[in-house]
């Protein structure tokens, strides 16, 4: 008997008024694997998770989670899934332990089993010390860990993590990745949404890039990165004229054409060889008499994925279109961020 996929979605569509959140999305997550769903705000990531976790009905299409139909067998689906949403959905007035025990009772575990499971998860997420204090006294990172712990109470066979690292500082993020990796070793299938290419790269075995409710790319992280052509060399020059001149000079280094932002004087080129190119770049620009105001080599971002795949960056989020629960995008133009 072939192993059934953890998640299989076909032709999912969902419309909110005039906004087409999903437009015929197909998705398969193999048993025991991790799929990273990557996209900007309003791409349809959260809508996908909400449909697969029975919180939302699709307008058309169908989906099975652990072989169970999300529309026809929602109660059965809820018994086998775990969900950690974008905000840490924890009860601040209860202690950490009480939050876990409550979730255990609602999963209909036996009393002794519930308490054992709570203690086990508190230990695993390094929350034992704070366990009996009300959660409102906890830090954001601790709440996030508790949120994740709650989603695991019922021993889910399929876990949904909707932007699990949003609101965490870099240290908290790395701790979280560590925790998620341990889960993966235990064989739980995971659907993870993220706006960070690096996060998907770190955790997922397959990445699906979506935009406006449609898949625009999919494959292994390696394949996607190869398509992106390596790291990004980023130069900033004083004037737009100097920027386009600099772009011509460094074009031969790139694995793709340089992008010039005339407004900011910024030039971005994908470079396969990393920092090795820096001395040459500096010498060349210096010889041409072009003054640099900034120079950096950085990892590709979601924006670069979109530039490569679609020829344009992620659209600045339109506040009226972005679902209210989405976080502001981390990159570009702080002035256009939508209120979260």
């Amino acid at each position: 008997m072939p192993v059934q996929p953890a998640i299989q979605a076909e032709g999912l569509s969902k419309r909110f008024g005039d906004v087409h959140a999903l437009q015929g999305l197909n998705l398969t997550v193999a048993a025991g694997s991790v799929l990273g769903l990557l996209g900007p705000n309003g791409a349809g990531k959260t809508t996908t998770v909400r449909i697969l976790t029975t919180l939302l009905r699709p307008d058309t299409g169908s989906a099975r989670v652990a072989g169970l139909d999300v529309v026809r067998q929602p109660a059965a689906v809820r018994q086998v899934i775990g969900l950690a949403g974008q905000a840490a959905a924890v009860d601040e007035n209860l202690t950490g332990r009480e939050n876990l025990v409550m979730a255990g009772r609602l999963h209909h575990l036996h009393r002794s089993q519930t308490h054992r499971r709570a203690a086990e998860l508190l230990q695993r997420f390094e929350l034992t010390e704070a366990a009996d204090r009300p959660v409102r006294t906890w830090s954001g990172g601790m709440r996030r860990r508790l949120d994740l712990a709650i989603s695991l109470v019922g021993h889910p066979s399929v876990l949904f993590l909707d932007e699990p690292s949003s609101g965490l500082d870099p240290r908290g993020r790395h701790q979280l990745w560590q925790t998620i990796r341990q889960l993966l070793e235990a064989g739980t299938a995971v659907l993870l949404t993220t706006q960070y290419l690096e996060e998907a790269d770190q955790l997922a075995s397959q990445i699906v890039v979506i935009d406006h409710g449609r898949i625009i790319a999919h494959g292994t992280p390696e394949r996607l990165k190869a398509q992106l052509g390596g790291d990004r060399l980023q130069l900033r020059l004083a004037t737009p004229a100097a920027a386009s001149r600099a772009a011509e000079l460094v074009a031969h280094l790139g694995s793709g054409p340089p992008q010039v932002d005339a407004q900011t004087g910024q030039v971005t080129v994908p470079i396969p060889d990393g920092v090795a190119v820096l001395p040459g770049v500096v010498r060349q620009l210096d010889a041409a008499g072009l003054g640099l105001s900034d120079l950096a080599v950085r990892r590709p971002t979601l924006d670069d994925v979109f530039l490569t795949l679609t020829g344009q960056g992620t659209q600045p989020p339109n506040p009226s279109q972005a679902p209210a629960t989405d976080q502001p995008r981390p990159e570009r133009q702080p002035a256009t961020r939508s209120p979260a």
Partner: protein
Amino acid sequence: MTTLAPRRAWTLAVADTAVMTRRYLYHYLRKPSLLGLALVQPVLFVLLWTYVFSGAIQTPGGIDYVDYLMPGLFILAIAFGSANTGVGLADDLAHGLIDRFRALPMARPALLAGRTLADTARNTFVVLLMVTVGYVVGFRFHAGPAAALATLALPLAVGYLLSWISALIGLTVRDPETAGTASLLPVIPLAFTSSTFVPVATMPGWLQAWANNNPITHTVDATRALALGGPTSGPLLRAVAWILGILAVVIPLAIHRYRRVTQ
């Protein structure tokens, strides 16, 4: 595995409701200020109305104004407190907790059932406190212990009903502050155009027509009859009919709203 025997489904629904009731009771215990304020207001009601109005208002049959007033004040205090239900649910919604619960394999009505039960427990506390303060300022039950118990039970039933209405409002407006204000909107005019403070016969004729058909008038009249003695079956029947009738409409509406609230 996917379909439960009806009996088991019922047992689980009751267990889930108990978990939710306990959760919301913890909220009151963990926020002493919330509980404290919930208790100060009813006490103020008793003291203010008793002392400020007792000289000015003629009661039918010359009974003490405090005896006339207390049954209505039970209902008024509970009615004002009922906004907590909607505020709490809107707060759960804002914190993503409703989504969390809806993705758990728990009985659908358990969250609302637990919330309204916890609020009824709180109301019981409020009413007992008011009786205590009432006794200090001269209030007495006049119709024996069974009627006295019913005098307390009827306002609690009204409170249960108003909690479901507030739940429906909270899940509809979705914002805690708005939920608080919106939940009081129907309560204030209904309470003040009823027989809570003054006999309906003292109102202008057009208002009498309204006040005589106001459900609060019927429940206050029944509670008052239970406290003071006299004919109770007529008012009690009307009050219970109103309460059950409105509950039969509001509970399904609120549960329906809960099912769809984050769609």
